[in-house]
Every structure is written in C-alpha cells, then in structure tokens.
C-alpha cells in the first residue's frame, strides 16, 4: 500500500515537472523570445541571478504597456532562461536549445569561459549575443556585442581623471585577480596611467582563490604607491584589499571598475574611501535621468534587501539597445536588428548616445561607447563628478601608441 502511495507521488512529481515545461511552451502568437544563458546555480550564480532582476523589471514594463511595437506589429517579450552553470559544454547545449527549440532572436550571456564554445554556433545561426565583457569581441564573432559595460576601456578614462584631479600623485600600483577580466583590467589601467604620465610601480594578478591579501599588500606597499587600482577585482576581494591597505598604514587614492560599498565600509572608515574613483553611479544619482531614478525605485521596491550591482542593470541595458535596433529595423529577426544597430550612427545607451568602437583593439566595432560617467566617493556614496569620452582620449596618437604597446606587453591581441 505505502509503496503504491509513493509511486503515485513520484509520478505526480514527474507530471508536474512536465507540465511546468509545457507551460513554457504555450506562448502567445505574437511573442518574441530572448534567451538568457548564464550561470543560475553554483558559485558563479552571483553573475547570473542579479541580471534577472533587471530584465524582469524591463519585461514587465514593456508588456504592461501592451508590448513592444516593431513595424506594424506589437510583440509581447519573453525571457527564456537557461542555466549554463558557467560551464562551456552546458552553455553550448543551452544556446542550441534556446535557438533551435525556443527560437530566441537574441541571447544575453555573461561572456568569458562560455563564449569560445558557443560562438561558432551562434555566428553560424546569426544570432546576436550580448555579453558584459568587451574583450570577448573578436573578428570571428561578428554577432557578439557588448552594448552596456565599457569594461575594460573605461579604465583609460578613470586614470585620466585621477591624473587631472590629483596632479601630485605620481606612482600607481595595480592588482586584480588572475583571470581574463582581471588581466584585461590590469593591462588597460596600466596603459591609462602611463599615458597620463603616472609611473606604474606594481602591476600583478593574484590567484582567484586568494583569501588573504596581507602578503600582496605588503609587496604593493613596499613600492610606495600614491594610487592603488584594484582593476576589476571582484566584490569579495575589494573589501579585503581596502582593509589591508588601511591597516598596513597606507593612505592615498583608490580606484576600481566598480564598488561594493556595504562590504568595504564595514572594514574601513568612510574617510579612507573619500575621493575613490570608479565608473558606476548608483541609479539615484541626481545627475542621471528620470528613467534611471524610476528603475532604481522599482528595483528597491521589488528587492528591498538586495544590494545593487551593475549586473542588475547591464542585461536590462542590453535589452534597451536590442529594442531600439528592432524598432529601427522594423523586424525582430536577429540579422535585421543587427544590421540596423550597426548602420546607426549613434545608438542610445543608458548613459547617453553611444558610438561603435573596437576595430583596432578587439578586431570588431562591436562595443557601444557612450560618454561615460566618472564617479567619486563622497561621504560613502558614489557621485558623478565628470563625464569623459573614450573617443576624445584616443585622439592623441601618442597615448594611443602607449595603449597598444601596453596591451602587447600583456600578451593581449590587438588589430591595429
């Protein structure tokens, strides 16, 4: 008897799982699907899950307004998720399922380890893929674009700003974790400092499993830097680096790609972080637009106890760009949207109109570059203090040469 009950329960469980799958299959006729293939479980999920918060706010807003009007049709938007666990083989299965099964017209991905195995297929199918890491752009990946995050290019702007604002600072140290992201950050930051006339006295990557930063900071401080750049150190490293620099008695200017303030301010006093430079504002910054503020308010309402990170916004920012391209093309077909986006002189980016860039550095003009904000920490909160444009920076041929030389020295391929 009990065995039968158990069998029944097991069958029920299997059926409910199937029906879950079926629900996803029932879709309204005029729905356009966009794939979301990122790590949603395991240690890398911190890179995938927050993005869903932003995209769901975006999708709900568009659908509540009746859908996205493209040409003479109105489409509801649906995000189809796939958990790639940060693993290349699973990501390949994922993008195949999304493209062949769900017929998505574009895919949002993190980039990095999952890009090499998935790109040959996505290029062949001509499916646009939006990633968050510009250094994934390559000549043989025509449909891979980075339309939100200007990493690692914005490091050039941060360093230039620091050189302008702190003329006395002469020596800089750069550290970031030893992976593709960290190494790109180190190389571009080093180029930025050199171009701004600041000596780089220490630039080294640390292993991703590092838990103790005391020896690293001891080695850094031995070089007596005025500036410490954390490159693109992950949140769990930043606070520890700051803490070590503080407790080993160093005072100076800190810069990083982005911040996790809650954690840092738990370790070091506010004063230590005063004037620290980065490129990501909170979206309630008075210098930003009403759209940003509305998004911030909505996000705060939905996830009151989550901490804001650029990941929350970036996937959503990619959807903005995609929608613009679709409306301009009058079609949701991947290739049409792609052509429309690439044909546009300027494309609206969250931080203002952006232009395509990347041919010389990545081999393809697939990075959307707007005028990027520079933020400084004042009273424990980032505030926009300036806007800078990468194209202005690149106008100086000498600086440009320094950039290419440095990238070459760091073994990063360029396409000059």
């Amino acid at each position, binding site marked *: 008897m009990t065995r039968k009950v158990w069998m029944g329960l097991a069958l029920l469980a299997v059926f409910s799982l199937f029906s879950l*799958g079926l629900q996803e299959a029932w879709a309204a006729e005029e729905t356009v699907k966009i794939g979301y293939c990122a790590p949603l479980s395991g240690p890398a999920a911190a890179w995938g899950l927050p993005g869903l918060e932003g995209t769901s706010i975006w999708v709900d807003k568009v659908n509540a307004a009746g859908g996205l009007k493209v040409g003479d049709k109105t489409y509801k938007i649906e995000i189809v998720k*796939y958990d790639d666990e940060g*693993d290349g*083989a699973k990501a390949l299965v994922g993008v195949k399922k999304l493209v062949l099964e769900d017929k998505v017209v574009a895919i949002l991905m993190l980039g990095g*380890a999952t890009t*090499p*195995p998935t790109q040959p297929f996505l290029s062949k199918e001509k499916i646009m893929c939006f990633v968050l890491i510009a250094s994934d752009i390559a000549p043989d990946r025509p449909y891979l674009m980075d339309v939100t995050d200007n990493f690692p290019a914005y490091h050039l702007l941060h360093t230039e700003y620091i050189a302008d604002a702190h003329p006395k600072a002469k020596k800089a140290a750069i550290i970031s974790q030893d*992976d593709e992201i960290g190494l790109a950050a180190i190389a571009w930051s080093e180029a930025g400092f050199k171009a701004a006339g600041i000596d780089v006295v220490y630039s080294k990557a640390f292993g991703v499993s590092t838990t103790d930063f005391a020896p690293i900071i001891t080695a850094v401080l031995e070089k007596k830097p005025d500036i410490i750049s954390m490159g693109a150190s992950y949140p769990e490293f930043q606070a520890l680096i700051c803490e070590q620099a503080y407790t080993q008695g160093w005072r100076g200017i800190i810069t990083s790609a982005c911040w996790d303030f809650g954690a840092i301010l738990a370790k070091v006093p506010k004063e230590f972080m005063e004037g620290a430079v980065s490129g990501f504002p909170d979206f309630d910054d008075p210098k930003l637009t009403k759209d940003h503020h509305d998004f911030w308010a909505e996000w705060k309402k939905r996830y009151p106890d989550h901490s804001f990170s650029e990941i929350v916004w970036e996937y959503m920012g990619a959807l903005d760009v995609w929608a613009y391209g679709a409306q301009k093309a009058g079609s949701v077909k991947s290739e049409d949207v792609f052509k429309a986006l690439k044909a546009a002189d300027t494309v609206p980016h969250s931080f203002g109109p952006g232009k395509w860039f990347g041919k010389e550095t990545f081999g393809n003009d697939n990075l959307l570059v707007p005028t990027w904000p520079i933020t400084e920490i004042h009273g424990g909160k980032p505030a926009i203090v300036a806007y800078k444009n990468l194209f202005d920076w690149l106008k100086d041929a000498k600086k440009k040469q320094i950039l290419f030389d440095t990238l070459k020295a760091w073994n990063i391929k360029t396409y000059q």
Partner: protein
Amino acid sequence: MIRRILVYIVDNFRWIGWLMILGAVLIVLPYMVRTYQVEVLILLLIDIILVVSFRLITTTGGWSLAHVPMMGCGAYATALLTAGLGVPFWISLPLSGLAAAVMAFILSYPLARTTGFAFFVASFAAGDSLRLCWTRFKTPFGGHKGLTNIPVPEFFSSVDLSAPIPYYYLALVITALCLLIMFRLDRSRIGHTFKAISMNADLSRSLGINVTFYKMLAFTIGSFFAGVAGVLLAHRLWAVVPAQFGFVTTLYLLVWVVFGGTRTFHGPILGVVVLTFLSELLKPLFEWVPMIFGTIIILTLIFFPEGLEGLGHRFTPWLDRQRFAAGDEPRH
C-alpha cells in the same frame, strides 16, 4: 574458429540479444529526439567514457580527483596538435590520449605510493596544478581564454562532422570502442589483479604482486581514456578553456559513480545516464538543483550503499521468490 564464435553467440544469446537491442536503440535515438538533445547525448557519451575509465582506476582502490584535469590534458593536447600543428584528428585522437597517459604516468609516481585520504588530496593537488599551469602559462595554453578554432574532425567529404547527428555517431563508435577495450581489460587477469589490490593490498604484496606498478598502470590507462574523452569534448566545443575542467565537474563525476556503484562494469554507466536525465528534467529548478543532488547522494549512500547496481542484487532474491511461488526453480 567460426564454430567457436557461433557456440559463444548461442551460449550468450540473452546477453548478446540485449546488447543488439541496446545498439539498435542507440542508433535510432538521435532521430527520435530534438536537435539540442542530441548535443546532450553527445556529452553523455563523453561522460560515459569518463566514468568507466574512472571506475578502472577505482578498481585498484584509489579514487582519483585528478580525472577531470586528465580529460583536460587530452583536450589541450588535441587542441595544440590539431589547431596548432595541423595534425589530423584521427592521429591526434590516440596521441592526445597518450599525452594524458604520459602526464598521468609521471604524476602517478608519488600518487601510487599514497592510499585513501592522502590519495584523494594528492590527486586533487596534482590535477589542480595542471589547471594552474593552463591558466598561468599563456603560451602555449592561452590562459583563461583557452584555445579556440579547434577543427572539426575530417571524414569522407560527404559527412559533415560539425552537425550534431554525425558527431553523435562518431562519439558512439569511439565510446563503444573504448568501452570494449576497458571491458576486456576488466575481465582479463590484469583487471583481476587490480581488484585483488583493492580488496587487500598487503596480501597482494605478500603474494608477489607489485602493487605500486599495477596502481600506476591503472592510473595511466584510466587517464588515457579520460584523455580520449577530452578529445571528443574539445572537437565538439571547438574550444578548450581551463574553467571546463574545474572541481565542480569532478564532484559531479564522483556523484555519478557513487550513485551508479563501482562493483560492476555497468554501474557507473547506469549512474551517469540516470542522473543526466534527471538533471535535464530538473533544469527549471535552477539554484535548487545542487541541493537535490546532494540529498540524492546522501540518501543513496545511506539506503543503497552499493548504488543503483546494488538494487539489481536486492531485486534478484525477490524475483527468485516470485519464481519460486510460480513453481519455477530459482535461477543462479
């Protein structure tokens, strides 16, 4: 000779019959499922080589945590050979397996001297140092970006091995071949010696068996097949990145093998097949999945310590009772 084969077939008719049915199912399978699911099947075949070669090492008593990096060794070797030096796939396939085997042979010198817990940790450290080398030395391994542009295996020009179904058949043939060799090995005296060592190493020593040598042999042969699995993976993904061979994969490998059981040859295969289907089914639950797997594995070990294969043994007495009740003789 022919008569012997015929007698063998008749004697083992049941067994061969089942195998033929299985073969037929495997041959038509790709046409029964969706395209992306063929991709899952290809990865499953690769994982089958991986678990069976892993079991080969465990028959000597050592549970190697370096097995996934060994697969990486094969993958990197074929990437360097085919994409870098232009060696054809069919030559690179055994060569890359051999590369993994050579690497394993070198590492097995200290490893084979350790047992139990020390073997775990030492093999993990050995595998992890391989992975550190791939990330650290950009030439020739490409660092975190790994190696790309691995060519599609060439076959008669009419067959496009970049498409899923032809590649599935390629993987099927190679998997079948690998399993055949490993099955043969398992049933040979070498395999018996491996098992004797795991049953009692001291007794084996006292009987004149060079335990260290056989452990090194098992580790090397197992790693050879892990390398072959890596070759199949690399030529399917057309890219290798070090993150592919991380510790999470190793943990899943252990879970598959334990879930299936290691006493029999088919146990680990059963484990990986069932759990792969389960994880495809559970996909919509996202972040809950590791917890479900964790629970499954603990419950398996508590209630069926021998894994899925042990269920068969538990089932046999029950079957015998049913037969007995039906008036038949119990089968032995």
